[in-house]
């Protein structure tokens, strides 16, 4: 079991990444009340920054993370973006990592490559195996 939560706008890149990972995931709605998580999870998010890095984290993701009990269960973030945006590539991951004290697990471009899919599946599998081991649940 690999609990993922993700936001994808209608351009669909993040949703395609989630589809290809084949691990399921809880979608965050563009408007309205976000879902609440009750087990450790990883967030997958696109990046929407302007040239100065403003607005990197999509609003639905901010609304989702504003719920403290949900936020406490966040174990890491996977950020989608595009290297063509230079220094702000996948910046949403860095912003969330800093604010929530979790690692950026992976940065991928658009919907990800086959190599990204393999790397993320393997990484998530290790991460959640560690989390499920009774002695290594992070405080």
């Amino acid at each position, binding site marked *: 079991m690999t609990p993922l939560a993700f936001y994808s706008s209608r351009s669909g890149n993040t949703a*395609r990444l989630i589809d290809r990972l084949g691990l399921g995931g809880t979608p965050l709605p563009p408007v309205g009340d976000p879902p609440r998580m009750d087990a450790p999870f990883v967030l997958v998010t696109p990046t*929407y920054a302007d040239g100065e890095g403003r607005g990197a984290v999509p609003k639905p993701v901010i609304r989702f*993370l*504003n719920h403290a009990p949900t936020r406490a269960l966040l174990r890491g973030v996977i950020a989608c973006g595009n*290297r063509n945006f230079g220094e702000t590539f996948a910046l949403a991951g*860095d912003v969330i990592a800093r604010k929530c004290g979790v690692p950026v*697990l992976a940065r991928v*471009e658009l919907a990800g490559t086959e190599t990204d899919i393999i790397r*993320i599946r393997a*990484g998530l599998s290790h991460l959640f195996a560690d989390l499920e081991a009774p002695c290594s649940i992070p405080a």
Partner: protein
Amino acid sequence: MKDFAQTRPVPRAINWNRIEDDKDLEIWNRLTANFWLPEKVPLSNDLQSWSRLTDEERTLTIRVFTGLTLLDTIQNAVGAPALMPDAATPHEESVLTNIAFMEAVHARSYSSVFSTLCTTAEVDEAFRWSAENDHLQAKARLILDEYDATASPLRRKVASVFLESFLFYSGFYLPMHFSSRGRLTNTADLIRLIIRDEAIHGYYIGYKFQRGMEKLTEAERQEMKDFAFGLLFELYEIEARYTEELYDPMGLTEDVKAFLHYNANKALQNLGFEALFPDEACRVNPAILAALSPGSDENHDFFSGSGSSYVIGKTVATEDEDWDF
């Protein structure tokens, strides 16, 4: 006598407080926030670096930039305007006017580079070269034919995304290559501003393409996808020849081709399609990737197994009022 049948209807005044597609406002805001002019970049700081290039490198640079100028000229004067009658919302039309204008800024920027670094004779020769280069003319022709085909708004979008997200990259490679070696770094800064804009253009037009695809039958969608992959193959063949002609003398052709494959896949993703080229064909030189997004690889991600992902980088503007914690 006046032919009233030809009279265009008065359009409805655009109301930005009634948005039909949120993406229009999102992209308008992003594009306008990113507005820039070439005067912002101190190109003259590259004079010394320019003088240290070989004659061959200088000629290649000017030629590559005239090729890019041609693509921007097409997108400014034909491509973006050709998409306007197909717009699904009035706000999309407005976004396209921004795209059209920024393409003019891009085309104008190359002339700023030329006037700063080059002699008039060198530049005139390169513009003659671009007007006569078979590969450059052939790719322009393929794109223009799609823009002029009256039947299909979606085919126009495919052509536009391929121009924005694929065709520019045989040219963008060179300033990224120089920049990775500390040469022409101010010119590279200017090119990165162009790359940033083109990425949003390709993303947005690709998004509108996907919305259009949703209205088609399954059979029509398949036909459109076949068309897109077919056009990409045709363009790729030309790009491969163009790349060989330009970069063979510097021994960079294979490196550039990996970059072309990588960008072709990204163009397809903008259209909502899967990648065409396998990952092995897309192993872009890490120096080029680092030149594209400087600084972004300083914090290695956790799953790549190197570095500390807990070390978070530079301070950036975030809207703290949006975060309760």
